[in-house]
């Protein structure tokens, strides 16, 4: 039986590799924890026995028994798979079982590769079923261990005498201990190089299908449990999600200076308050998209900048947009519905992150489309109406709105502490008993008070503010930013937003201290991972290629203009106006392009100079031995037979016969060669001149001889005229 060389070391490494390969599977819910636990126990026990030098090869009967025991488990897995419509778990469990059994049945040298194949499949399964960023850490760890394993296997293979290419049988004598070699450098460098090279390979590999993500959502396989955007909501929205740091959306302004001071994202607008809940009327209408997939919300308002939005999947159909949104898209949606308050509703609840681009104006655009439901008096108690009348006083509707808003802002406090409150009449309790509450109570009270005065108003839920990520430049809107406010109508002002919640109760922009940097960095990584790994597809490849092409073209035109001493040509303006249009290159951009070109040229020149200097320094003056070697080659080229065993004197004789015109040069060269190589007399400066001269003369003679022979082969060629002296 051909037992393994370096048996113990190989088994140990295979054990660790098998253990590591399966780690992500339960995190991805691909197999259950208890099953991985059983697998880990089997492998760890295997490693322990190997390290203690105990036998680890199970007898054949034990292997058969294990197979028989596993058979019903496998059949039940298959049965469950049929019921669930997925066999992944059954296959993975079978794979882990086979891997563990194979480890315990390792006998021969080649069987270690069977284990490696099984490990490879487990690794592929772990990668395929993962969507979390931490799989990158797993990838790095696994690649490092795999590289180390293969490095050691290659070393042991050679040490065991397999590498000499012979097919001889290995002797039964135990292999020697491998010589100590430090593997830190190849392991570290190899891992880093593999990771670096894998990035362009990943980016360039052909994609023919949309990205498929297993268990997709917030990069962790979950859908956000966000409340407050369904058709009916209670007044516990804020308390349920305030303090939740999960990100709902990321927003990136193309022109950060155009970002409004207050970011409001409209999610839903509610019409009827009944039984402590707000209800939304059926959709008020739909926005039809244009032929190019763009939804326009206001034709007469010009956009100022564009905003890129990445919205995480939520348990809602709400499409969260800035109030200033003029148009949306292009997006692959047939239609988008609108509620009475102008909030947008997607045709279906998204199951994964959606990204889209909107153009925004300076002023709010997403306004209610009508008054239906905005004057619904349901839920208004006499006490509330009385208070409203008292607070609103006399004046226009606009003045009344402001008065009520100011009353709530000034007379009530913000709290999330509702201990002791019955919750039967939350608005009355807020207004008349406790005098404090959260944003929904403020907004709901204001809506009811306005309606009692005959002023159309709606409760709006959405998100206020966000936390700017300093690394990526986007604004991360978290669940913590959920907010409720009011939209009211006055004839003089039209529909406007009002926020009666005191400023201390409104969601902030998040901390800017060092401590808040950690989650920001994590979020940045998660976002990048989600955007550029999980969601990466053919469109991104196309985008990268186009962007690269445009950039190179831009650089080239800038460079060409710079060479000609002209200003850089302005980029052609696509038709139409708006923020999506490419702005002409600024002087700064032109200067940057020139700077880059100059830096590249200087770098190339410096590299060439350094290479030249290094070559010059490493260059050694030709020795007489060099000249002698070249002479032998020249003689061979002339057809003389110069075997290796021919000594210098014999070579000299051949050279004298072949090149009689350079006889003295040949003699000088051979003499110098013999002095240098056999008399231990290095070439002096004067002799070097002599040597160079001899080499030159010999080369000249060789050239002439070759020319003469060529002429001799072409008898029709014109022969040189004989000199008069000749």
């Amino acid at each position, binding site marked *: 039986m051909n037992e393994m060389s370096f048996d113990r070391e190989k088994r140990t490494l295979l054990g660790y590799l098998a253990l590591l390969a399966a780690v992500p599977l339960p995190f991805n819910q691909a197999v259950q924890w208890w099953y991985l636990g059983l697998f880990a126990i089997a492998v760890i026990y295997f490693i322990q026995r190997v390290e203690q030098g105990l036998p680890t090869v199970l007898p054949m009967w034990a292997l058969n028994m294990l197979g028989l025991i596993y058979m019903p488990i496998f059949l039940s897995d298959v049965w469950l798979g049929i019921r669930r419509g997925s066999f992944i778990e059954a296959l993975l469990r079978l794979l882990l079982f086979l891997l563990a059994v194979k480890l315990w049945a390792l006998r021969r040298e080649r069987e270690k*590769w069977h284990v490696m*194949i099984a490990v*490879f499949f487990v*690794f*592929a399964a772990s*990668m*395929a*079923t*993962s*969507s979390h960023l931490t*799989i990158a850490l797993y*990838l790095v760890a696994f*690649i490092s261990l*795999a*590289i180390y394993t*293969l490095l050691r*296997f*290659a*070393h042991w*293979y*050679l*040490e065991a005498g397999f*590498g*000499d*290419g*012979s*097919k*001889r049988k290995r002797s039964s004598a135990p292999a020697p201990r*491998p*010589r100590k*070699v*430090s593997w830190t*450098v*190849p392991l570290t460098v*190899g891992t880093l*190089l*593999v*990771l*670096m*090279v*894998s*990035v362009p*390979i*990943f980016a360039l*590999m*052909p*994609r*023919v*299908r949309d*990205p*498929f*993500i*297993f268990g997709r959502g917030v990069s962790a396989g979950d859908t956000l449990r966000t409340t407050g955007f369904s058709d009916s909501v209670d007044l516990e929205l804020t308390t349920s999600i305030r303090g939740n740091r999960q990100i709902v959306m990321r927003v990136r302004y193309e022109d950060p200076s155009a970002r409004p001071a207050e970011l409001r994202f409209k999610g839903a607008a509610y019409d009827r308050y009944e039984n402590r809940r707000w209800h939304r009327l059926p959709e008020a209408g739909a926005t039809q998209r244009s032929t190019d997939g763009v939804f326009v919300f206001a034709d007469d308002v010009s956009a100022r900048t564009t905003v890129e939005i990445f919205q995480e999947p939520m348990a809602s159909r709400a499409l969260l947009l800035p109030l200033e949104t003029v148009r949306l898209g292009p997006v692959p949606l047939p239609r988008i519905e609108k509620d009475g308050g102008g909030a947008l509703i997607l045709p279906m609840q998204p199951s994964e992150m959606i990204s889209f681009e909107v153009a925004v104006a300076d002023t709010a655009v997403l306004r209610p489309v009508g008054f239906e439901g905005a004057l619904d008096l349901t839920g208004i108690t006499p006490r509330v109406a009385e208070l409203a009348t008292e607070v609103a006083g006399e004046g226009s509707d606009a003045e009344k709105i402001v008065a009520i808003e100011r009353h709530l802002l000034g007379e009530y406090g913000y709290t999330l502490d509702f201990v002791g409150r019955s919750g039967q009449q939350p608005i009355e309790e807020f207004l008349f008993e406790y005098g404090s509450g959260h944003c929904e109570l403020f907004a709901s009270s204001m809506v009811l008070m306005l309606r009692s005065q005959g002023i159309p108003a709606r409760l709006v839920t959405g998100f206020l503010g966000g936390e700017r990520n300093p690394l990526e430049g986007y604004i991360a809107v978290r669940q913590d930013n959920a907010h409720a406010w009011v939209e009211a109508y006055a004839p003089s002002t039209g529909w406007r937003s009002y926020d009666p919640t005191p400023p201390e109760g409104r969601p902030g922009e998040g901390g800017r201290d060092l401590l808040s940097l950690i989650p920001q960095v994590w979020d940045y990584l998660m976002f990048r991972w989600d955007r550029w*790994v*999980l*969601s*990466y*597809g053919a469109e991104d490849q196309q985008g990268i290629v186009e962007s690269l092409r445009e950039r190179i073209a831009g650089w080239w035109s800038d460079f060409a203009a710079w060479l000609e001493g002209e200003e850089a040509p302005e980029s052609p303006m696509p038709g139409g106006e708006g923020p999506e249009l490419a702005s002409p290159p600024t002087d700064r951009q032109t200067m940057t392009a020139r700077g880059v070109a100059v830096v590249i040229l200087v770098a190339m020149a410096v590299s060439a100079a350094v290479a030249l200097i290094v070559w010059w320094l490493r260059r050694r003056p030709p020795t007489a031995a060099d000249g002698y070697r070249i002479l032998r080659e020249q003689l061979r080229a002339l057809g003389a037979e110069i075997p*290796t*065993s021919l000594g210098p004197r014999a070579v000299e004789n051949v050279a004298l016969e072949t090149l009689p015109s350079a006889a003295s040069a040949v003699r000088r060269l051979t003499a110098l060669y013999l002095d240098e190589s056999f008399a231990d007399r290095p070439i002096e400066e004067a002799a070097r001149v002599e040597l160079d001269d001899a080499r030159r003369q010999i080369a000249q003679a060789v050239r002439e001889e070759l020319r003469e022979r060529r002429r001799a082969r072409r008898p029709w060629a014109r022969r040189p005229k004989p000199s008069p002296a000749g």
Partner: protein
Amino acid sequence: MSRSAVRSDGMRVTRVGVWTLIFSVLLLVAATNTGNNGLYLAVATIGAVLVVSHIIGGRNVRGLQVAIEAPDEIYANRPCQLDLEVENRGWLPRWLLLLSVERVDIEPPSKSSRRRAASFLVPYLQARGGRVRQTGYLELLMRRRGRWRIRRIHVSSLFPLGLFYKGCRYPVDLEMLVYPEIYPASELRPANATLAGDDTSRQIGRGHDLLSLRPFRPGDDPRAIHWKQTARIGELIVKEREADEGRRLSIVFDNAVGELEHPADRARFEKLISEAATAAVDHLTRGFQVALTTRDDRLPFAGGRRQRLAILETLALLEPRARTDRPLTPRDPREPHLRLALAAGQPSITVDKTRSTIGGLL
């Protein structure tokens, strides 16, 4: 050695490499079919492993200086060790270098199932500034006498991951003269024949070997006194040395055997040469003066290492000549001589004890 003379030996994918490639393709098909970026990531990583392995493996075997030196005496069918020195002239360390001599790089070619004649593993070679030189040896076995030539040393490596064999050929052009095979002397000499020649052939002289001890007589050379025996016995004892000229052997090797077309004839001829070489080496070792006479050359009587090398060199290069009726006679027919020839196709060894026997040879 000029750098341009170093030739890349290309790449050979190992079995592990082939399987890795196959699995990468399978994984790529699965990734393309599903659009699963996790699988794409796994494929990209394995692809990167292959690319990096290919590049690093190629770099690992280049930029070396390899030198090889043959030992003074190499005998056929006796393992010899060629001194090997490899030097790292690059800026990066090297790992798992396998230096080998391949059969195709040796002249004359020999039939062998093994691709490599000898190999030496250098697990680690530091970069410039460190221990850049590594010495070792290649153990070779030449099956035949004659002139051999090693054209190049093959440096290959499985580094880093054993997926590819990368190799470079470094020219060395080493010429070696392989002496004929020397048989164990016991095969030729009876075990009890430890002394050469019979007693009558032994004469007092100025040789190196001790003939006898006797009491000192007036007129004896005082340098011949054996001081240890003198001290032990209590009277002056002198050493008598054997005359070298009395221990001579002339080997007559008739290589006019015609063309040896049949391999068996050639083998017999080779065996005869080995026997001549064995006899020469054996006798020279025991202080004989040995002469060699062949159809090509005549080496006069001489002893010592120089004569041994001269005889071995002559025998190593000895080739069959056309048959002739002219007898081959030793330089001095009165001296005892050993005549080796192929008589009727069979090896014939005859001993002429004209003046003395060739003790213990046969």
